[in-house]
């Protein structure tokens, strides 16, 4: 994966595959502490302790394959910056994945296009509520697909689904950019 936003999409796709109705993506940047925390939380089918413990093993998959690389890739990316990955999961309740990164580490990947990732997630799973939160220091940006109304989308009539997706992408990228200034 070239950047953090691609990891986000990949892990959130796991949530959707686990039957989640709600997916929360949180990116917290702390420039003073030099850290970035990524949380992806869902209300999907969850994992028992044994499955969760093996989720970061590249030669383990719960989807009937012989390998599963999404979580191992993210763990590697986090560890390369001095960070790590933690999974909290309960069967029938959902999963919360937390990974931390050393923001100023030379091996820190760029953040990438998070707007495009959320757009691809919502486009592929229009029935899933996606919440995205970005915090940098004391600045905060919050996005919720349930709070979107036609007024946000386009003046002069209801927008089509692809139009909505493009607006979601722009809203998120603008929201992040403004808080990085």
């Amino acid at each position, binding site marked *: *994966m070239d950047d953090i936003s*691609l990891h986000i*999409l*990949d892990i959130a*796709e796991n949530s959707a*595959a686990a039957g989640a109705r709600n997916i929360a993506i949180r990116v917290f940047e702390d420039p003073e502490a030099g850290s970035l925390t990524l949380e992806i939380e869902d209300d999907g089918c969850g994992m028992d302790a044994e499955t969760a413990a093996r989720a970061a093993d590249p030669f383990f998959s719960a*989807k009937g*394959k012989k390998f*599963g*690389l*999404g979580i191992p*890739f993210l763990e590697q990316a986090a560890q390369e910056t001095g960070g790590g990955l933690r999974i909290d999961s309960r069967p029938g309740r959902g999963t919360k994945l937390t990974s931390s990164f050393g923001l100023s580490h030379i091996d820190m990947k760029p953040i990438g296009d998070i707007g*495009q*990732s959320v*757009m*691809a997630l919502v*486009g*592929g*799973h229009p029935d899933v509520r996606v919440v995205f939160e970005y915090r940098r220091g004391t600045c905060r940006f919050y996005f919720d697909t349930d709070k979107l109304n036609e007024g946000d989308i386009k003046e002069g009539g209801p927008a*089509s*689904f*692809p*139009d909505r*997706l*493009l607006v979601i*992408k722009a809203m998120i990228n603008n929201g992040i950019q403004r808080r990085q200034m």
Partner: protein
Amino acid sequence: MPGEARKLTVEDLKRIKEEHRATFTLREGGYRAKVTVNMGTCGIAAGAREVMNALVEELSASGAKDVIVTTAGCGGLCSREPMAWVEIAGQPVVRYCDLNGQKIKRIFKEHILDGRVVEEYALAVGDETSY
């Protein structure tokens, strides 16, 4: 004569056809065409998100209302990702591989809008059971 109805033009008919096309389609959900982009780890690492992005931009720009875009997991052929498949009502499924934003835009125009399969990008035609 007052109140005389304006004559329908060919353009009017085209517009009406486009507006009501979705209601006459065969597939459930009323879509004439459906594009599914494989969005597994392998696909994402190879550029599937860019393919999806290009498709959404193209779909929005075209204004077509009878085409739906969605995603799926790993297609089982990771070395040929990004992959996507196109279903058009009444026609065999076409599976495309080694995609990028430019290629999917061409597929959108030629296959989805004009009905001509882009053979040079196609991996296979038909369902899994037929190849």
